[in-house]
């Protein structure tokens, strides 16, 4: 009898241990977040390094519980995050291999980053295949969430359509009598999508302005634009649109300034904000610049505790004001914290995705609504301003800054960007 009781008790204990052991996971003390960004190549200095700096600064502050309220709790769901810094260079094929390695061999808990639209486009199906909680921080192509539904993948900033629709709206307000425009954009997904969205929007909202048939598509990272600048100079178009970024943007600004291109033409640079702090007096006055959303120089004077903390901390650590990519990576890391805080540090990828899907949160410089792509694609305001060198303080500033609500410059849920623009941007709430 005693033997039977002991055997029964042991059996019960064993069953309980198995049942509860499987059902209740231990909260983690630490997690690993992989952060890919351009650490080499022409995009590193103006884009990749500020982005990585923003990510590291925010992750470090979260680990210490040093972010302003309401994010002043320690850690990611209480866990300390260690950041794995990765170079995004080398192209889509290499990045897919690196991503598989991160997930399958290094067992990272989350992946947060990516700048290149080409890389994001290549990675999106792999993220879903591997069921890994991933946040794209900066890349711009709208196709990521328009071509297929995503479960594990998020993007915490607006896409290229917002940049270019907002640019066209700003142009319409500033130059209502504009008669013609042209463009110079890099010859790959980002440049082509950007020009397409700007051109289509201009056709809708300024039908009296005609597009030049000599718009330029130089090879990405080519760095030499002598012939293109001549062609743009000879073109009768009054305005030049460009989505150049990184070293290409800075080289183009040097070469076009020396040749007085923007003395006679209006320049619209959708990513010009990344060059504003770096080029100083070499950036021409009067350029219309964006920052791919409410970031960098456009929000330097935005007086919220989160933004003040971001600017002051970044300037103290890195000695320069934060540009757009720093904000974009910083807010993507913040989104990861929000997901972990909600789901717990021991959460599965599904639980983390559920925690982030469709939410609205305050980021450092703006409100982010995860309202497109089934709650996976962020909608934010988007804005532009005009460059001016402030002689007194020895730095560039922007004047005439105007922001457009996300609901004004991005398509509603379920509608593709091109369809939306071509259909007259129905439902836009400006």
């Amino acid at each position, binding site marked *: 009898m005693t033997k039977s009781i002991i055997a029964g008790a042991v059996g019960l204990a064993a069953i309980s241990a198995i049942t509860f052991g499987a059902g209740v996971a231990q909260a983690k003390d630490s997690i690993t977040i992989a952060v890919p960004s351009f650490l080499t190549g*022409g995009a*590193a200095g103006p884009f990749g390094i500020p982005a990585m700096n923003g990510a590291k600064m925010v992750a470090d502050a979260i680990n210490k519980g040093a972010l302003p309220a309401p994010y002043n709790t320690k850690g990611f769901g209480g866990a300390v995050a260690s950041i794995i810094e990765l170079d995004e260079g080398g192209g889509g094929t290499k990045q897919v291999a690196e991503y598989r390695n991160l997930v399958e061999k290094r067992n990272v808990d989350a992946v947060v980053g990516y700048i290149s639209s080409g890389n994001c486009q290549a990675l999106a199906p792999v993220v879903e295949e591997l069921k890994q909680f991933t946040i794209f921080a900066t890349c711009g192509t709208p196709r990521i969430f328009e071509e297929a539904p995503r479960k594990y993948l998020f993007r915490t900033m607006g896409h290229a359509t917002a940049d270019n629709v907002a640019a066209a709206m700003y142009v319409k307000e500033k130059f209502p009598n504009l008669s013609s425009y042209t463009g110079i954009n890099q010859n790959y997904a980002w440049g082509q999508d950007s020009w397409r969205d700007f051109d289509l929007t201009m056709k809708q909202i300024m039908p009296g302005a005609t597009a030049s048939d000599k718009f330029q598509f*130089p090879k990405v990272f080519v*760095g030499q634009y002598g*012939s293109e600048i001549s062609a743009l100079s*000879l073109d009768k178009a009054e305005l030049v649109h460009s989505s150049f970024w990184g070293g290409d943007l800075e080289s183009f600004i040097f070469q076009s300034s020396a040749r007085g291109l923007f003395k006679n033409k209006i320049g619209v640079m959708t990513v010009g904000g990344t060059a504003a702090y770096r080029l100083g007096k070499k950036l021409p006055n009067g350029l219309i610049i964006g920052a791919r959303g409410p970031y960098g120089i456009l929000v330097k004077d935005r007086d919220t505790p989160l933004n003040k903390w971001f600017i002051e901390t970044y300037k103290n650590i890195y000695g320069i004001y934060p540009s757009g990519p720093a904000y974009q990576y910083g807010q993507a890391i913040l989104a990861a914290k929000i997901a972990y805080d909600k789901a717990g540090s021991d959460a599965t990828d599904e639980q983390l995705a559920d925690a982030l899907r469709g939410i609205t949160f305050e980021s450092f410089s703006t409100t982010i609504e995860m309202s497109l792509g089934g709650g996976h694609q962020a909608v934010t305001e988007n804005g532009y301003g005009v460059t001016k060198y402030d002689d007194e303080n020895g730095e560039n500033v922007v004047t005439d800054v105007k922001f457009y609500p996300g609901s004004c410059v991005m398509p509603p849920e379920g509608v593709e960007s091109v369809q939306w623009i071509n259909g007259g941007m129905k439902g836009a709430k400006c």
Partner: protein
Amino acid sequence: METFLTILLDGLQFSSYLFIVSAGLTIIFGVMKILNVCHGSFYAWGAYTAAFFIGKFSDMGLPDALGFLIIIAAAIVVGVVLGLIIEQGILKHMYHRDEVLIVLATFGLFLVLEDIILIAFGTDPYFAYQPMALLESVEMGGVIRDVYGLTLIGVATFVAVGCWLLLNKTKWGVILKAVIFDREMGISMGINVPFVYTLTFIGGAILGGLGGAYIAPTISVAPGLGTEVIVLSFAVVVVGGMGSIAGAAIGSLIIGLLRALAVHELPQVELFVVFAVMAIVLVFRPEGLFAPAKPRKI
């Protein structure tokens, strides 16, 4: 007429840039039969060295005109130092090996030198606009042009004439041609071929460095600079004929002018035109337009 003049000047300017960087590549191949992939690194190191010192001198308040001296000095220092180290330290020990192995070695060196750039100069781009700003702009054919860009045509002409004089009017030229024509025969005639190789490699490296140093004031000098240029240089050398200075000049002119024409008249094909020219030449004249005649050994 306005457009024609602009296309001509754009084409000449781009051709000049192509010629300066590809001349060194073709000289090294012509004499040493080495397809030097790390030529792109000479270009990048030239650009970085010039940009670094132009920036430093400017910060120190020294006259911007010194930038021109720095460009020349950077090209010479980079060419001599890197050229000597690479030729004496590595390539010299591989001359008896298969040509493919040497190409792989130069490719490896290219990757190593790119990484050393990152260690030495960091990832932040360097700006060295001072020499370009000093020369201001002029209006030509209805287009404002920076004079600095136009001087590139003069520099390329100087390099081309210099190479021609060296090869055709000096004793050194005779020696070089003898080595190009038949290395063994050159040795038997008492030519110090290893020494000729070393000088040739340094000369080619100086030209690569000059290309980078001269372009530095017009661009954002950033990591990865050498990759793009090596692709273009190969296209030029293939079109003109491997090892031919005249070929490099003609190849540069063809590619530069056609590219400028495409940018102005049919921008959609600009990307394609450089490599289309290369493909067409390869189909009809695989050795290139001006490949030096090869002696038939019996």
